[in-house]
């Protein structure tokens, strides 16, 4: 996968951190969080992993 593709993916993941597909009241609780809040946390974790991965894989340093 090219660097530009991964940069694009990072932007998509960032946009997906918003709980777009959750509506109305939620009484589904996962680890103490309503389902949409749990989704937001999981996506935030995923975003951090994606950034760190892309940095590690595609930033070629002289050292």
């Amino acid at each position, binding site marked *: 996968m090219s660097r530009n593709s991964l*940069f694009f993916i*990072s932007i998509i993941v*960032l*946009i997906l*951190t*918003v*709980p*777009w597909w*959750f*509506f*109305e*009241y*939620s*009484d589904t*609780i996962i*680890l*103490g*969080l*309503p389902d*949409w*809040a749990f989704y*937001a*946390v999981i*996506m*935030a*974790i995923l*975003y*951090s*992993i994606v*950034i*760190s991965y*892309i*940095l*590690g894989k595609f*930033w070629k*340093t*002289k*050292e």
Partner: protein
Amino acid sequence: MGLYLLSLIIIGWLGRKAQKENTLADFYLAGRGLGVFVLFLTLYATQYSGNTLVGFAGRAYRDGYDALVLITFLSAAVGAWLFYAPKLFRLSREHHFITPIDFIEYRFNYKWLSILGAILCITALANYILTNLKAIGYIVVAVTGGVVPFAIGIIVLSLIMVIYETLGGMRSVAWTDVIQGTILLFGVIIIFIIIQFEYDVLSIVSDQLMKTAPEKFFSPTWIEKRTWISTVALGFFGISIYPHAIQRIYSAQNEHTLKRSIQIMAFMPLITVLFMVVVGIVGSGIIPGLDRAGSEKITLLVLQDLSQRGAISGGLLVLFLSAIIAAIMSTVDSALLSMSSIITKDIYSRFKPTVNQSDLTKMGKFLSWFIMAIAVYLAIILPQTIWRLLEIKLELLIQVAPAIFLGLYLKKLKSKSVFMGMVIGTLVAVSIMIANKLGMNIPAKPWGIHAGVWGLMINIGTIYFMEKLSGFKNE
């Protein structure tokens, strides 16, 4: 606390002793020699201010789970570095940049664009310093139970900051950030762990909240979702280009050091912001019914509750309170240093191009004292209503983002297009905010989008239009 403050002065003196040459690069960028450990901790301590520890928990208390946006708000800044930090670092080495405006000057070579960019950066930094000084005053009053007055707290801590900052510049600031960042990191982690044990798990709190505040369980509405993505955009385009953050990019020992530091920073919002949001939500379950002013103190109230229960010792309480003060100081000293560098390099030296590096560095130190004196005065005397007008730092700073992001990647981008975009974007953002403050029928966030983000969209649109127009003219 006294020992901690004394250690800062000693570090300031050590920073001065470590000075290699009397140049702007040595003073403002620690000679471009920060290693991974110091660079990471200074990035961390600078990024996370007292607002993180106090304000974010307060927001979570009031808004509930919606405050989780703040995690991505800060992660987005690291995501933005992914796009520009590697290129900008290499250019900074090649062309000896000191400030973010040095890149804009190098890339576009247009005086008015550089000056406007400098003004926007200075305005954002001034706001940052003022709001954090005010916060430090309130916290000192709270911590000492009113024994140390608001004004004295601000004056004493500001004096300590400006002393170590002018003694050793970025070296002192970065080394003090190592202490401050460590206290901050450990403080947040320890308090989070104690809260988990003392108040049972979040599910207990969520059961209580379901009964007392069921509205917190509604997922965001469409307008709230737009505000969510707008907040993320502010983080991506605004927080990432804070001048003191960019100067830390310049200060890295080498590219590998910078890369590793940023990789670690990618996870810090999860450890810091998420933990503080949990503190706020737990606080809303155990101490319900606080008004806005009360909610801003929720971190301290939860700590006091833990202390009364015997869950934390006096030592741990002092640790966390020190973490709050450390977080604020690490942000103020960095913003002050950055502001002094921009005024010295990007404004003063324009009028005095023949002044040598040593004299410019002296001017920078003088400016730090001058800026801090004014900031302390304003932080003490400005009424709250004026403060509301000052809450416009990111909305302005974000207008500089196209110059950096687009300037790095679009070789043919013209300086006048970027300048017009910056002018119009700033005018749009300021107009929306002023109109709202004056009570006109314009919301602070039209359609749920921040004024600054509207300004940014129109900024980029203006650049696009200007480029197309110049393309037609050439044909």
